[in-house]
């Protein structure tokens, strides 16, 4: 897994619900088409908001079936308090390698201390936390900077780089703490290239957020827009280093 040439899609939603319609076979096919070795998989919105265990189970099952291709991300709703902490712990024990928080869908502000017990656990277990950002008001780049500064040993992934409205804030907010990483989906390749130039290629993670975006197309565009040395690091190396802190995949 230390191989520099491995590619990892930093965020995909696996499952069929509302706008999501991604099955395991289609994801594998798309990954093959795009030359992607691994994909981080997470549950659809409904299972981020409610029925967390059901969503986590589905993702963990898929990751166990395809352990050479999928990396499980779990989610719990911070409003569930101690139950959320327990479910997060349980998912970790079953092989989850990332925590996903979606403040818009889960109904909290990204820097609300409501989520701190989960961030504490993630930090102690050396698990990166992916936070969907961009929805105005409750999940913005500077809110990510707040929690990154409160949890300096925790790797925080700024999903979507605050797209669309907060593109102005991204370079300064990302530079505010060394433990912030930028994930590319929705940010569009021309903007992501600019962010990498501003904050450094060691902070970037390419993600497609399939099926909301077309995975092969997103990867093709990243290859076109990013300088080769930036693509090399952001297409797998950076994320694999974060994931490896907890141990080999």
């Amino acid at each position, binding site marked *: 897994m230390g191989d520099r040439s491995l590619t990892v899609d930093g965020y995909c939603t696996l499952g069929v619900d509302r706008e999501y319609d991604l099955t395991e076979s289609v994801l594998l096919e798309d990954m093959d088409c795009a030359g992607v070795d691994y994909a981080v998989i997470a549950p659809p919105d409904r299972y981020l908001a409610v029925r967390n265990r059901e969503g986590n189970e589905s993702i963990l099952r898929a990751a166990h079936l395809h352990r050479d291709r999928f990396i499980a991300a779990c989610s719990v709703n911070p409003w569930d308090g101690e139950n959320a902490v327990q479910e997060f712990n349980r998912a970790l024990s079953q092989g989850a390698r990332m925590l996903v928080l979606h403040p818009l869908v889960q109904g909290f502000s990204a820097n609300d201390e409501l989520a701190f017990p989960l961030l504490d656990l993630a930090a102690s277990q050396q698990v990166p936390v992916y936070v969907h950002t961009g929805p105005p008001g409750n999940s913005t780049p500077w809110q990510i900077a707040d929690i990154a500064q409160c949890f300096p040993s925790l790797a925080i992934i700024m999903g979507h780089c605050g*797209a669309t409205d907060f593109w102005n804030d991204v370079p300064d907010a990302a530079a505010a703490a060394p433990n912030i990483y930028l994930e590319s989906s*929705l940010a569009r390749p*021309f903007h992501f290239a600019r962010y990498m130039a501003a904050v450094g290629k060691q902070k970037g993670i390419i993600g497609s957020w399939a099926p909301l975006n077309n995975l092969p197309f997103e990867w093709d565009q990243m290859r076109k827009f990013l300088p080769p040395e930036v693509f090399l690091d952001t297409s797998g190396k950076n994320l694999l280093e974060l994931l490896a802190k907890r141990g080999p995949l």
Partner: protein
Amino acid sequence: MIVDCHTHWGKVWDDRDGGNPAQWLSILDGHGVDKAVFMGHTNFTRMDLCSQENDRLARTAAHCPNRLIPVGSCWPQLGDQGVAEARHCIEDLGMKGLKFHPWVQGFSTADPVLGSICRLAGDAGVPIFFHDGTPCYSLSEQIAGLARRFPRTRFVLAHAGLLWNWRSALLATRLDNIWICLCGPHARAMELLCSRADPQRILWGSDFGFGLADQIEYRLNLFLKTRIPRSLQDRILGTNAIDFLGLAQ
């Protein structure tokens, strides 16, 4: 026939090319884009320069009148002078639309002077493009509020709700004087918008031109690679815009 219904004559282009759109048009040529709704830049950021920027935009578009469709702006904060500028754009400059960016321009859609401008545009049969998808002045719902108050005026949600507000844009299309421009939502949202909104009131745009980067490559192929039926794609890219703006083929 491809009509890009959301472009800008950016300040960087004007500074570099001095009112000559040849290089700008060469980007369109590279993607087979025939015509473009040609919006400004400085007229959204400088109240004091808005009028001269509208004139400049019209002069720049006049280099290629069969391809560039200039759309002007004005500032409701200027009261009667703002209304007069809207009239100048329509009657003197022959512009086929107005464009507002309430978030950047800093006015509310509840501004009574904006109401006068909406009424003027409706009387003249000229549509109004709005930046949408962004609080606190540019939500799709707020533009839909104008559409309710001014049923004889056609309104374009120029970003179809962007990434997080597209369901609001979809709901807004139940008003028959609302058009949506697919310029901002992710691929899956575009598919769902096209499957549920009136197919005659959907346009496509790239937002190209604020900077020098070619955004058309990404935005056009993002749209073309969706599962939207080809016949509808063709209609959205061409026929709808031609009909909506009353253009010659």
